[in-house]
């Protein structure tokens, strides 16, 4: 691990920290969903860097499966929100 990779890891750790702040203290639930989406992408990148550091290509499969699961989760959340709109009685709960 050279200095440039250490700097990259520090920057990605700061990025994860900012995203986690928005995830915990987000003003609305929509901000939390968006930051969870960004957090999944950052986690995929961290898994790829872990694969590079440990020298094992097994973590790349884990990164691929993690990104697939996060994509399915975000699409499911979008479908849940749109289904809540169509039931007008639940519309007030969807908004924050």
């Amino acid at each position, binding site marked *: 691990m050279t200095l440039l990779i250490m700097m990259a890891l520090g920057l990605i750790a700061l990025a994860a920290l900012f995203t986690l702040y928005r995830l915990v203290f987000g003003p609305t639930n929509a901000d939390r969903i968006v930051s969870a989406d960004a957090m999944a992408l950052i986690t995929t990148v961290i898994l*790829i860097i872990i694969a590079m550091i440990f020298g094992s290509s097994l973590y790349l499969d884990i990164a691929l499966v993690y990104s697939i699961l996060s994509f399915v989760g*975000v699409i499911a959340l979008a479908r849940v929100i749109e289904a809540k709109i169509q039931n007008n009685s639940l519309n007030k709960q969807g908004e924050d």
Partner: protein
Amino acid sequence: MQLAGEIILLIGAIFIFLGALGLLRMPDVYNRIQVGTKAVTLGAIGVIVGVALLHPDWWSKLFVVLVFILLTSPVSSSAITKAFYHSGIVPWKSIPKSKKNKDKESSS
């Protein structure tokens, strides 16, 4: 090759950091979707290309991950933006209007 891979990886990490900083600083949900998708996706591409330059044996798996991120990240952000827009979250441009309305209500 080693130095080029590390520099591209660092550029990708800088883009991820800027995307997360925009996620922290942007005023609205739609702006946060913008930076949280575009900048972080570009940073992820940079990191994957950097790792592919550092470990050339892994290029097939890294290519699969890169194509998957490129295909799914805009789709998920578009779907969730559409859901937010249909659920009645107003964009940021109309916030001063609501403030004016609040001022009118408070003044009247």
